[in-house]
């Protein structure tokens, strides 16, 4: 258990800067999710914390101690990789115990810890199998087990669920969260999936092009995005943006808009197509000025016909206003 501090963290490959200064104080036992589109530098940030990537500028502190120059093994961290990175020629038990074996932990102790992790992850029947004899979900568990047995202070996850099918992903998501709570370990978790981020995070770092655009609790970020990028990235379907007279943008979330009669709305448009999902319906509308907007309405509300002219209405209080640089201007 430990705190993690990133201070003005920078990374460049040669002349190309990929991380432009990230600051965060992570509390002991906190679950932090780093979320952002592909290529924005999430993995790079995590790998700097792990020690797999050098720090160009700034400082990484674990439990208050600078670790910039330390090897991964000396940082008291464990990492779960996207493709699991299990050793193919070792059994499940050997995979989980390898780190301890290197640390010269007594054999009996290794066995106890591996057995304990296997019980926690329901891997007991598979301890003697090779990774290739396991399903994707089981391999994922072994990778988690390998992290657990070392009893690290910090867990690092790099998109650990992206190779699983949708159903398993939801299940493993819950298990990861439960496990992290149970063990009380500080966790940094990288994902590009905003649903994963919303459900797992105590706080999340929304990254865009190497910049931490916003750091905060998921609901706070959802309710008060600080930039147009965050408003567009967090929430599904994404926020509708409309040009504002002052050159900036107005953002309204699809769930805050309703379809009304053409003369009763804030704007008018024509229904392009609808997606009835049962519990809710997505209505895609082309506005008069050519912009598109999405309405997310309850499944019980009548579905407008395609090509129908409609009005879109929302409460002015839910509008989010962004300046021409994308930064929120109606500060709250």
């Amino acid at each position: 258990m430990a705190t993690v501090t990133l201070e003005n963290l920078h990374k460049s490959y040669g002349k190309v800067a990929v991380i432009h200064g990230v600051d965060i104080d992570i509390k002991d036992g906190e679950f932090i999710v780093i979320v952002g589109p592909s290529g924005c530098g999430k993995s790079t940030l995590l790998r700097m914390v792990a020690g797999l990537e050098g720090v160009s500028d700034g400082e990484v502190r674990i439990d208050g101690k600078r670790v910039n120059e330390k090897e991964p093994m000396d940082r008291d961290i464990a990492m779960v990789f996207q493709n699991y990175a299990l050793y193919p020629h070792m059994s499940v038990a050997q995979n989980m115990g390898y780190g301890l074996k290197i640390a010269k932990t007594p054999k009996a102790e290794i066995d106890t810890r591996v057995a304990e992790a296997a019980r926690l992850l329901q891997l007991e029947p598979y301890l003697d199998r090779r990774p290739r004899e396991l399903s994707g979900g089981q391999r994922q568990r072994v990778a988690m087990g390998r992290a657990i047995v070392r009893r690290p202070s910090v867990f690092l996850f790099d998109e650990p669920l992206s190779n699983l099918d949708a159903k398993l992903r939801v299940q493993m998501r819950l298990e990861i969260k439960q496990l992290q709570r149970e063990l009380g370990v500080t966790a940094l978790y990288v994902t590009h999936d905003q649903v994963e981020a919303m459900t797992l995070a105590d706080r999340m770092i929304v990254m865009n092009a190497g910049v931490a655009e916003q750091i905060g609790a998921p609901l706070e970020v959802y309710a008060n995005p600080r930039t147009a990028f965050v408003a567009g990235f967090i929430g599904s379907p994404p926020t509708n943006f409309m040009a504002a007279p002052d050159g900036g943008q107005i953002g309204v979330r699809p769930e805050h808009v309703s379809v009304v009669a053409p003369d009763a709305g804030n704007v008018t448009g024509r229904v392009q197509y609808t997606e009835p999902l049962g519990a809710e319906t997505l209505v895609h509308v082309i506005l008069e000025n050519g912009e598109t907007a999405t309405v997310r309405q309850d499944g019980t509300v009548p579905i407008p016909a395609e090509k129908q002219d409609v009005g879109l209405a929302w409460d002015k209080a839910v509008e989010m206003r962004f300046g021409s640089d994308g930064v929120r201007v109606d500060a709250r």
Partner: protein
Amino acid sequence: MAIDKHTGMVEKRGAGLWLTHLGLIIGVLFIFFPIWLAFVASTVQQADIVRPPMPLLPGGHFLENYGKALTSGINAPVATMLFNSAVMALGISLGKIVISLLSAFAIVYFRFPGRTLFFWLIFLTLMLPVEVRIVPTYEVAANFGMLNSYSGLIFPLIASATATFLFRQFFMTVPDELAEAARVDGARPMRFFFDILLPMSRTNIAALFVILFIYGWNQYLWPLLITTDPSMNTIVMGIKQMFPSGDDLADWPVIMATSILAMIPPVAVVIGMQKLFIRGLVDSEK
């Protein structure tokens, strides 16, 4: 045609099956016949061979001929030559494997100045087999006093660009994440090499060992140059040395016995390593 569930192979039935087998049997007989003749010749007496027609069934002098070959031979006892060949073939194949594993490891996993240069230098030597560089190599070996020695037989042939290249290609297919996971687990580079890379290369090493052993065993030109003392002869060149010069009579039964004996170790290696060898050639253990 039907897919065999157990082997996953396409299986032919009926006439096709018989034709295939017939073709294979004829092929085997065709290849095997000279070997059979050699074996027959190694079990009869000199007189039986020179008098036509040549016998087609083994005679009764098996022990006598093989005993003579092994203990006294013609220039040197075949047992000595077998031992020399074994030392040379094992030295070359194991040496090549160790060296190329280590160089491939260095080239793939370490960033050092001139890494690409070294890779291309190694790659270039692919184009320089022993025969091309034989004169300078002989010169160097002679200056080191390696004539008529095991080191002279082994070291000049021990570097292998091919094997280095093969291991490099294999290592590059090993995901980076694996090396990183090992690093997080606390494995330093050589530990990673021994605990992870080496076991993962097991089948590749086995396949390469078979190929290199046969390569080493079959060396002819180099041992011919570097050894003048009959007690350092290897068996493959030794057979040729047994042929008489001038008017001497060739002792064909002993020469044939020697040939048969020369064939046994490579065959034994292939059969012994068959399972690993085929796996190494066919699937990549991932």
